[in-house]
């Protein structure tokens, strides 16, 4: 199983966690009900060491699963040794972006290096689809490198936004509109999947 974008991953996550939540609540409810009964018997006996083994497998296996199923993990770890199709540099200062272009168009499957510099505060760098869902994000700290490689596999139009709070000055004082949101900044074209 390989997730090619955040929508697929989060849909899977939603189902898996909902099932887990329903299970744990049911177990506690069943447990509570049976605590009051004199003749209640265990439906299953869970030996202690198997339970611990299950927790270890869950904790470690989760990372092994995501490492293999989410392509941006290995790409992120090895990003300084990997090549890219284009590098775009961004600067943020006083809640304003200095953008590499007014709008960026990316071909399907291209790997882009986003390199962001903050001149003052801690900001964030995030790409959001038109339905508001997040494609990816990173923190942007002043004084240290903030770069990320990203490969796009689906057609979409993305807004750019700062994903970290950097004070109320990132909003309009009266209307509350987000002044750091750059609408329809990046477009991915040429894929078979995604918005046309």
């Amino acid at each position, binding site marked *: 199983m390989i997730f090619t974008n955040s929508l697929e991953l989060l849909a899977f*996550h939603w189902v898996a966690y909902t099932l887990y939540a329903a299970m744990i609540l049911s177990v506690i409810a069943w447990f509570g009900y049976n*605590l*009051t009964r004199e003749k209640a018997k265990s439906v299953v006996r869970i030996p202690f060491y198997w339970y611990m083994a299950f927790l270890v497998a869950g904790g470690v296996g989760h990372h092994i699963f995501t490492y293999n199923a989410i392509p941006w993990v290995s790409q992120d*770890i090895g990003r300084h040794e990997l090549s890219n199709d284009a590098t775009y540099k961004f600067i943020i200062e006083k809640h304003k972006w200095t953008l590499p272009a007014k709008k960026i168009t990316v071909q399907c499957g291209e790997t882009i290096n986003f390199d962001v510099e903050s001149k*003052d505060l801690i900001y964030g760098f995030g790409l959001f689809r038109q339905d*508001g869902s997040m494609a990816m994000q990173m923190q942007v*700290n002043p004084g240290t490198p903030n770069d990320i490689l990203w490969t796009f596999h689906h057609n979409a139009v993305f807004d750019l936004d700062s994903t970290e709070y950097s004070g109320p000055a990132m909003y309009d004082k009266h209307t509350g509109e987000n002044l750091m949101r750059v609408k329809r900044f990046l477009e991915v074209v040429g894929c078979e999947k995604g918005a046309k």
Partner: protein
Amino acid sequence: MSFAKTLIHGTDFNHEGLNALQKVTLRAVVMAFLFYGLVAIEGMIMRMVEVGPQAKAIMPEQFFHPDHFFSIMTVHPIVGIFGSTYQLVFAAFMFLVPYLTKKPLYSVKLANFVWLNITIGTAFAWIAAFVWQYAPLYTLYWPLPADTTQFSTIGGIVFIIGIALIMVGTFGFIYNIYATIFARVGVHKNKTTKELLISGFGIDGMLNLINKLRGKEPYTKEPALALPVVAIFRGTVDTFLDAIVILGAGILVLVYLVADLGGIQLDVTAIDALLYKNLFWWGLDLVADGLVLIYVAGSWYLLATLITGQKLFMENVARAALMLELLVSWMVWSHHLLGDQGQPEMMKLISGEMVTAFELLTQGLALFITLVTLWKARPLKMTMELKYLLGGLSGFGLAVPAAIIQADMGMNRVLHNTQWIIGAHVHIALIVGLYMTLYSALFVLWPLVTNNTKLYSSKLANTHFWMHLIGGIGMGAFMGMAGLDGMLRRHLYVNGEFHFDMLMAAGFGTMLLVAWALFLFNIIMSVGLKGLIGIFLPAKDKTASYVLDPEDM
């Protein structure tokens, strides 16, 4: 008895019959629940703003202004975590340690100093946000708290003084707890400091396990400290460390703000933002992943043994696990920095992912031991304390995996800073997990602290339980879903971008608010307004312990 008479006099509460320890405990509890109400109202204000423009019809326009909105967001966790949770936990432990060790509390005066300091400190922080709209958020990410182009310098100084007062109160609590534990009186008259230290860190449990594996006699058949006291001892180590870090950060901010006030502009780049973030999260994470988890595990063990009247299942393992949690809690902070590209990858991998996953083990173990202890004692009566305990276990059963899932380099890329972590993890862990555990403790301690005062209404208590449980899980769930839809946590949305999720979260949030009002009403009707005031009057009986046998002294 008429309604008015009960409102004034309570059921059968007599504040004059309370000793000094009981009174100081109740004072902090009252303040904690008042702050809880404030934090619930703040949460609802922010939720309603995020619902969208429809909310403007019923709310003042100023709540939609970023200055105001983020000043509420800044004090919301300060009031909730320090003003309410810290007070409640500190009050419970300053009562429980003397109760469990059968020794008097080291100092009732110091206990009074603790609740007063935390109350005044919280008020200062709240005033700084309300009056000057100082809003760097609780994260205090450098150099935002020293950014005087956005924030008032005076507001910042008042805020930091407030935080410092809370931390000084915290040091008072720590001193009181350790001074009580190490006091060589009563059952500890003949114990050495070394014996108490070994027991406090859970080393005796570990040595017992090792000796068992080697076929030897146990290191000790009767550990010097009861298991819940070990948990309090251990969690308080993290409480101390996080207080040092938070106070240190506060002093740093204060230096910059005071210099600004004197017309001197200090260079903010002298402090490395990422290094500061690492240090700050190391300390702040000790609250979430250190003391909370340890204190909660200890509370579960205590509640399970008190409810069942039996010994804890696998006590030695539980003692040893508390020792393990000490090491784990110091090494997990990097899961907050998985989205920071300047953070070394090995730190992300080892501290952020692998060591963090250990928390699944330690918390899972505490859950297992508690459940088996209860199961072995069945049939049990479904009392209020048992109900709340099961609610608390459910809360952490939901919230801990929600965080472990996000403490992953793949998931973090799309979940960091979203409503997922603050909803599905933080709010469910605190409101459902922690508070329901604390409510359980409250129902267990109620007869001890109030001299068996009759509760006004068990129906109201039951209604509170269900509304709090459903409201807490529902609100956290819809916040979490909004996070999956891309909603950020430290963001202002004024156009109802996540209208449905926020509307549902507001609905469940209202249940929480109503639940709190019912709980408060029930307590006030039990102790009466006269009793409530009486709690704050000096105690005639200066005893600093609960029902001690004079021979133990």
